[in-house]
C-alpha cells in the first residue's frame, strides 16, 4: 500500500469523482439497483449507487436487503460483470452491400468512447486481466475488445462485504486489489464514513487532485487494511488447494460428472454471468433481397448442444460432457491455451445456477474421490 500517496475522501466526493471522469469524456459505468439486483449501468451521479443496499447470496439465490448504514459498496458482485462492456453480448462485426456486381464490405467502426468503470472488485480486475490474455494477448487481436479496453479507467474498490459464494482469497484474486488500476477505494464504516484512496496511475492522480481530500493518517491506512483482512477472514467458501490443472486432466472419466450432469440443466447461466467466459458465435442477417447483409457476434456457451456441432452431430451430446468441458476448461486447459486459469473466485456461477451447483463442491468431490482411488491402488 502506497500510504504516502494515499488520501481520504468523504462519501460525497464520489459525486465529484464521477463528474471529473464525465468532464474528461468518459462514459461512466458503475453499480446501480435495477430489477431487484445490483447491475452495472451508466451513472450520471453518485446518488445512483446502491446506497445502503446489500445482497444476500446463496447457491441458486440472490436477494437485496437494506443495510443499517449508508455504505456505497456494501455488497459483493451481482449478475453483471464488466465483460458486458468490454465484450458486449452482441456486436455487429461488419455489413456488406451488393453494388455494381460486387459487394462492398464495411467493418463496423470500433467503440471510440472511453469507458470508466466504477467499483471494480479485485476478482474483476483479475477477470479483465484474463480476458486481456484471450482477446489481445495472442497472435490475433480482437479489434472490438481492444478498442473498448484501450484507455478504460479502472476505479477499483477493495471488498469489505464478501458474499456467501465468494472464494477469491483461495484463487489468489482478492479481496484486496493488486492488478493495475487507476484509483482504488477502500470504504471504511468504522467511525466516520470515509474512503481511503490509493493512486495507481498518473491520470488517476489527476482525477483525484480535483476532489476534496485529506492525507491519510496511519490509523486510516490500518483501518483500510483491516477491511480486506476482515473480508478475507469472513469468506466461508474456498477452492480446494490442490493442483487444479493436474486434478482436472486426470479426472476426465470421473463418476462425479454423471452426478453433476443429473443436476445440471445446461441452461448456460454460469457461462453468461462468468466474468471470464469468452465463447462467442456468429449470426448472419440479410434483407429480403439479399442486397444488404450483416454479420453479428453474440455470446455463446459450451453448455449448448449447437456449440460443438459438426456434420454428423454434436461432439458433446451429453450434459455430462458439456459440464466436464466447462469445468475442465475453466480450471485446467485454460492454462494450456492462455497461460492462466479462467476462474477468479467471484462465485457468480454458484449464485446464478438455478439448481445451486457449487464449483468448489464439485472440485472437492473430484479431489476427494481421487484421493480414495489413489489410496485403493497404493
Amino acid at each position: 500500500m502506497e500510504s504516502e500517496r494515499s488520501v481520504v475522501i468523504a462519501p460525497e466526493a464520489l459525486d465529484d469523482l464521477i463528474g471529473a471522469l464525465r468532464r474528461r469524456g468518459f462514459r461512466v459505468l458503475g453499480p446501480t439497483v435495477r430489477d431487484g439486483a445490483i447491475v452495472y449501468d451508466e451513472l450520471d451521479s453518485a446518488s445512483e449507487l446502491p446506497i445502503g443496499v446489500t445482497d444476500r447470496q446463496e447457491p441458486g439465490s440472490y436477494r437485496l436487503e437494506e443495510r443499517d448504514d449508508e455504505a456505497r459498496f456494501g455488497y459483493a458482485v451481482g449478475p453483471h460483470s464488466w465483460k458486458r462492456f468490454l465484450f458486449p453480448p452482441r456486436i455487429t462485426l461488419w455489413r456488406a452491400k451488393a453494388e455494381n456486381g460486387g459487394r462492398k464490405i464495411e467493418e463496423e467502426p470500433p467503440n471510440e468512447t472511453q469507458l470508466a468503470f466504477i467499483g471494480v472488485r479485485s476478482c474483476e480486475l483479475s477477470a479483465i486481466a484474463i480476458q486481456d490474455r484471450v482477446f489481445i494477448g495472442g497472435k490475433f487481436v480482437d479489434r472490438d475488445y481492444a478498442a473498448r479496453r484501450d484507455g478504460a479507467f479502472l476505479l477499483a474498490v477493495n471488498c469489505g462485504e464478501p458474499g456467501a459464494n465468494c472464494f477469491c482469497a483461495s484463487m489468489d484474486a482478492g479481496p484486496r486489489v493488486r492488478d493495475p488500476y487507476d484509483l482504488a477505494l477502500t470504504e471504511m464504516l468504522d467511525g466516520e464514513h470515509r474512503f481511503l484512496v490509493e493512486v495507481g496511475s498518473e491520470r488517476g492522480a489527476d482525477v483525484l487532485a480535483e476532489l476534496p481530500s485529506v492525507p491519510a493518517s496511519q490509523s486510516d491506512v490500518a483501518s483500510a487494511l483491516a477491511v480486506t483482512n476482515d473480508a478475507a477472514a469472513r469468506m466461508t467458501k474456498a477452492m480446494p488447494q490442490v493442483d487444479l490443472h493436474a486434478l482436472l486432466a486426470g479426472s476426465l472419466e470421473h463418476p462425479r460428472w454423471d452426478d453433476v450432469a443429473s443436476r445440471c440443466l445446461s441452461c448456460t447461466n454460469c457461462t453468461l454471468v462468468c466474468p471470464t467466459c469468452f465463447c462467442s458465435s456468429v449470426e448472419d442477417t440479410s434483407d429480403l433481397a439479399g442486397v444488404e447483409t450483416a454479420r453479428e457476434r453474440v455470446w455463446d456457451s459450451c453448455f449448448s448442444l449447437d456449440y460443438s456441432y459438426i456434420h454428423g452431430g454434436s461432439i458433446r451430446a451429453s450434459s455430462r460432457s458439456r459440464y466436464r468441458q466447462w469445468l475442465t476448461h475453466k480450471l485446467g486447459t485454460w492454462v494450456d491455451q492462455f497461460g492462466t486459469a479462467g476462474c477468479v473466485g467471484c462465485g457468480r456461477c454458484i449464485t446464478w445456477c438455478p439448481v445451486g451447483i457449487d464449483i468448489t463442491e464439485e472440485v472437492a468431490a473430484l479431489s476427494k474421490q481421487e484421493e480414495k482411488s489413489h489410496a485403493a491402488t497404493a
Partner: protein
Amino acid sequence: MATATPSELHPVGAFVPLPFRVAERRQDTGDTWTLTLEPEESGFAVEPGQFAMVHVFGVGEVPISVSGPPERPGDPIVLTVRAVGAVSGAICASELGALLGLRGPCGNSWPIAEATAGDVVVVAGGIGLAPLRPVVLHTLAQRDSYGAVSVLYGARTPADLLYTDQLEEWRSTIAVDVTVDAAEPPWKGKVGVVPKLVATAEFRPEAVTAFVCGPEVMMHFTVQALRERGVPDERIMLSLERDMRCGIGLCGHCQLGPTLVCRDGPVYSQADVGALLGVREL
C-alpha cells in the same frame, strides 16, 4: 493518455472477409464440388494443410480446407466442398462469377518439409482427400526429395471417389491404392475400408511420415494399422475437424482439451492428440 484513437490503433479487424469470385466450378461427386476462386483485390498465400473461413453473404461462414493452395497472395485458391449443411450447400451452389468472402490462411500446415528424404504415405477417407491433395501435389512437384510415396484412398462407393482423373495421373509417378466400402459391378477395384490398405503399402516404417485425414473412426483404425507396421506416433500426422466460428482462436468452439484446433491445429501428430481423441465426447 494515448493520443491515437482506437480505430487508428486497430485499423482492420480479423473478422472481415476478402471478396473472391468463383472462376471455375466442377462437380466431383453427387454432393461435392471443387471451386476455383480468384481474389477480387488481394488474396493470401496458403500452406498445404491450412484452411480458409469461407463466407456466403447472408447465409454464414464455415471452415474449408484448401485443396489447391495459392503460393502467392494473388493466386487463385481451390476448395473442394461437400454440401452437407446450409453454408456448405450454398458454397457448392455458387455459380460462376458469384462472390464469396474468404478469411485466412487459418491454422497450421502439414510438416512436408520435415518429411523430406523419407517415405510418404497419404491416407485419406472421403472428403479427407481434399486437405491432403496439396501434400500429393507437393511430392509430385518435388519427387526427387522423397523416397517411396503412396496414396491410400477410400470412399463409400465408387461414385463418391474424388479426383478420379487425377488419381490416374498420379499413378504414373507414385503408388495409388483405392478402395470403396461397398460397390456393385462393374467396379473391379478393392472393396473394404481404407485402413486395410496400410498393411501392404510400400514404405519404410522407420523412415515414413504418414499424413492422415478422414472421419475420426477411420483415422483411429488407420493409426492402429500404422502402429502395427511400426510407424512411431510422432510421425503419424492427423488433420482434425471441429466446429469453428472464428478461425483465429477467439470463439472457443474448436476446443479439444488443451488445444484450440483452429489456432494450434488442424494438423497434429498422433503423439500430441491420440490420448485426447480416445476420450469420448471431449
